[in-house]
């Protein structure tokens, strides 16, 4: 991916490193290739280097080492205003002393676009975000969601091919956030623009993106489409970070036909899919199972599946699902989720049950 000669590559990071103090690397050896039209999300905890990557792409930070290319040409030495990249900021950064129309006019004026064409483009951009009637207002007179739409319109009005978004929905309440998530995705697909989106909200990342890059410790831990990221995490950080996750620790006994037999710390044996390179016979491993993939109804499990004894500790009714906390192999925080279906069993605290799962849902990761 990082050979730099990929013909459909639009945005490329090649061996990019960034250090602020000359002692610690904030971004360590970043390689990333994006085709045109892709919606890519950089997801990670704060301090993982995702915003720094975005700022390097925008031109506000310079890469300490490595090459950043846009449409095949290196942009390392191009100042931000010549990169032609649209950007939406976390707190909108609408100019408070200008009206909405003036805010939108700004990128067109600095591009020396004539008045009539300018007005037409502003109108189109405002209509696009359904804010056509607000051109004469000041940013302070708008609600957070409206300001967000204007910020989006301003980043799009000069028709950039690449738009960067730095946690643009962080300041909105949940309902509005979900609505805007949908609108941003819709706009991006309709306009065919390439989007790099930074967030620390995994739901946002999963619902909006074509691909998600999970950042931690200055590296991309996994770069994959959302479903793959959720169902097939490649290491325990990604498994922990994306969605809810049960972990059990143990030692790999043997690997047969792509199935690893893992002996948990209390002696019980389970089948897992070896994922991480470090999963070898005799090595420590951390096993990850999603709560909704755990099955306690024996009739639905294959006859030869390994099962584990579990004690029900707590049953929580959550409406659409039941959430049950179990003690499994000494782990008190083992969660299973079951759908609230008519024939579903409600487990009573204190009950002794047996649980199992398909071997491919149980992933042996790095310890």
């Amino acid at each position: 991916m990082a050979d730099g000669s990929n013909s459909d590559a639009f945005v490329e990071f090649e061996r990019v490193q960034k250090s602020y103090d000359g002692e610690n690397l904030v971004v360590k050896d970043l390689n990333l290739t994006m085709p045109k039209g892709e919606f890519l999300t950089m997801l990670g905890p704060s301090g993982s280097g995702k915003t720094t990557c975005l700022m390097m792409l925008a031109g506000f930070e310079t890469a300490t080492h490595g090459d950043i290319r846009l449409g095949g040409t290196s942009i390392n030495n191009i100042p931000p205003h010549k990169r032609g990249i649209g950007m939406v900021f976390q707190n909108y950064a609408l100019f408070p002393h200008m009206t909405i129309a003036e805010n939108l006019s700004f990128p067109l004026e600095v591009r020396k676009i004539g008045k009539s064409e300018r007005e037409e483009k502003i109108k189109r951009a405002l209509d696009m975000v359904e804010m056509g009637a607000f051109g004469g207002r000041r940013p302070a007179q708008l609600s957070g969601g409206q300001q967000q739409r204007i910020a989006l319109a301003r980043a799009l009005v000069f028709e950039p091919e690449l738009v960067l978004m730095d946690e643009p929905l962080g300041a909105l309440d949940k309902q509005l956030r979900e609505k805007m998530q949908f609108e941003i995705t819709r706009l991006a697909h309709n306009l065919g623009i390439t989007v790099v989106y930074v967030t620390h909200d995994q739901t946002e990342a999963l619902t909006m993106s074509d691909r998600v890059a999970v950042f931690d410790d200055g590296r991309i831990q996994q770069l994959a489409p959302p479903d793959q990221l959720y169902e097939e995490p490649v290491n325990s950080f990604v498994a922990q970070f994306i969605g809810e996750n049960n972990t059990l620790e143990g030692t790999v006994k043997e690997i047969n036909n792509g199935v690893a037999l893992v002996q948990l710390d209390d002696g019980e044996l389970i089948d897992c899919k070896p994922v991480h390179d470090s999963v070898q016979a005799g090595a420590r491993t951390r096993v990850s199972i999603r709560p909704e993939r755990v099955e306690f109804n024996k009739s639905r499990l294959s006859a030869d599946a390994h099962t584990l004894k579990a004690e029900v500790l707590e049953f929580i009714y959550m409406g659409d699902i039941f959430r049950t906390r179990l003690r499994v192999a000494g782990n008190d925080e083992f969660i299973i989720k079951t759908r609230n279906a008519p024939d579903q069993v409600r487990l009573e605290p204190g009950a002794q049950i047996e649980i199992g799962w398909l071997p491919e849902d149980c992933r042996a990761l790095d310890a």
Partner: protein
Amino acid sequence: MSDSTSSGPVLAADGTPLKRSLARALRMQKMRALMLIAPLLLFVLLTFILPIADMLFRSVENQIVSETLPKTVVALQDWDADSGEAPGEDVYAALAVDMKAAAEAKLHTRVGSRLNYEKPGISSLFRKAGRKVKKWDVENGGPFKEQFIKIHKGWGDPDVWRTIQTYSPRLTNGYFLNAADMQKGADGAEWRPENEQIYWTLFIRTMIMSLAITCSCIILGYPVAWILANLPARTANLLMILVLLPFWTSLLVRTSAWKVMLQQQGVINETLVWLGLVADDARLVMINNQFGTIVAMTHILLPFMILPMYSVMQTIKPTYLRAAKSLGATNWTAFWRVYFPQSVPGIGAGSILVFILAIGYYITPELVGGTKGVFISNRIAFHISSSLNWGLAAALGTILLVVVLILYWAYDKIVGIDNVKLG
């Protein structure tokens, strides 16, 4: 609130109108607040507002003539000043009575000094007459006209009497006319001869120099405030101490330091001569003129410009500049169209502060201003402490106050006072 069904005023639970009940509940709070500010309020009233009101009143007050010479003023009412002749015997008789009483109370010289402001030379008439009249028998010693003229022939001059008549009312606009380089002539107010006009020049000079000082403060202060606002907090605090450092030194010391720097045998001239940039016999004149005043006052008032600009700039988030650049603006366009307009309230606040401080500044122009670099305040001080013409000083002060208020109003109209922010 529960009584929303009834159409009358909203009632509290016990039936009293809610408004009254609320007022009662808040009364204690208001009283307490008032008690807390009472000492300061009293202090300000006694030491600031009352003296200023008294001072302003002095600019029109003129009771001294009518109080010291009551009978003369009455007798003089019918005299026609344009007749070209001195008034009749009755006026002189009244003057004799008044003058004797005044001389015994030692008040005659005060009237003399007062009238001397309007017509130089009158004070000696009163001094001489007072000395003589004290010994007269004012009841039967008449006729007095000849005797007065014998004391000083000025007493026969219609102009002297015109001055007394003009300044006999209890209130006068004479001080204000004086302050505006005018005088009361035969046909009302008229300009003073050109060689006696000084206040207009001083007012205009004060304005122009204050403006120059404000401008140089903006030019020097803006970059400093910008750097302060954009540095990391630790470094910014260190630099802020340097900005505030001058406040820890006495004003006099700082002004005197400029004397040392700027004078002809001073540091700058010596260095320039040593470097050969300036000939020894053509040293720059940088002090005791307007240049010296502007330099020293800019230095002294600079922190007042930097502080409000800094606190406003601190509130301008760096993302605005980034946003502007991401939208395609060059560094300069981003600054000029996005950053600068948002920093204008700070410039406004700093300018008002510096300009108003400069316009009434006294010590620095006095020390480094020479004759060409003094301000109107120096003239006011002169009339307060040297010439003792407090009325004129008060009139000059009032004009200065009004000018400042007008400028403040104009600023509000043009820029808007809401746009002034101190942070």
